[in-house]
């Protein structure tokens, strides 16, 4: 089962450049959604590949929905060669995204993110505006179902909607 606190703390301690996106970002922003995985957008930079792979190593990451005997090592070379990874770890499923639909790569996503305190660490989390843009762009039924709640949260906060950063 997902242990988001362990994952977020490990990534933050390792100074990984990442942004919490998806369902867990929605939760951090106040949504009542329940998600079983942690979606992260990571910076595509050689130093960050090292930090990210080292931070996740203790949790034994492997590819999700892939044959158990398929050789896989999450290291800097793997991260450099790929873009998006759907992983399972000993502390839950983790999706690593080099780009987010509707927003773009890490640098663009960061413009839609804010730093919040989570488990005594300052962690970048996608804003409600960013979540709404990305969910609309993804357009899947499960994304669209969450939209009214995100928009309601934004209205309750009195923030502008869909205007971007």
């Amino acid at each position: 089962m997902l242990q988001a606190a362990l994952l977020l703390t490990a990534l933050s301690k390792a100074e990984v450049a990442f942004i919490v996106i998806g369902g867990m970002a929605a939760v951090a922003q106040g949504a009542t959604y329940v998600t079983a995985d942690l979606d992260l957008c990571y910076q595509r930079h050689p130093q960050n590949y090292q930090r990210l792979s080292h931070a996740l190593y203790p949790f034994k990451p492997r590819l999700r929905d892939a044959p158990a005997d398929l050789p896989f090592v999450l290291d800097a070379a793997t991260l450099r060669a790929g873009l998006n990874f759907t992983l399972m770890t000993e502390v839950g499923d983790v999706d690593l995204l080099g780009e987010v639909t509707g927003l773009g790569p890490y640098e663009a996503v960061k413009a839609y993110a804010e730093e919040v305190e989570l488990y005594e660490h300052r962690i970048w989390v996608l804003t409600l505006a960013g979540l709404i843009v990305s969910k609309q762009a993804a357009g899947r039924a499960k994304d669209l179902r969450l939209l009214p709640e995100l928009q309601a949260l934004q209205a309750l906060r009195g923030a502008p909607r869909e205007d971007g950063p």
Partner: protein
Amino acid sequence: MQPIHASAEFLAWAEQEGLDLSMLYERLQLTPTERLQRHQMALELVEALRQVQRGRGHAPSRVVADRAE
């Protein structure tokens, strides 16, 4: 893109559609860490229910509960 609604009108519509605004109000009073802690408790409940379901011989389903709380 969804149309931009006036906040009050949108909230009235959302409530009429069944969105529990009181729960959202309550969540907004919490810190982000407290929100994740609440989520963790909900996830553990979902997992416990799945275990019970498995024990009864039902086929396990992937943890998905859009509104488990």
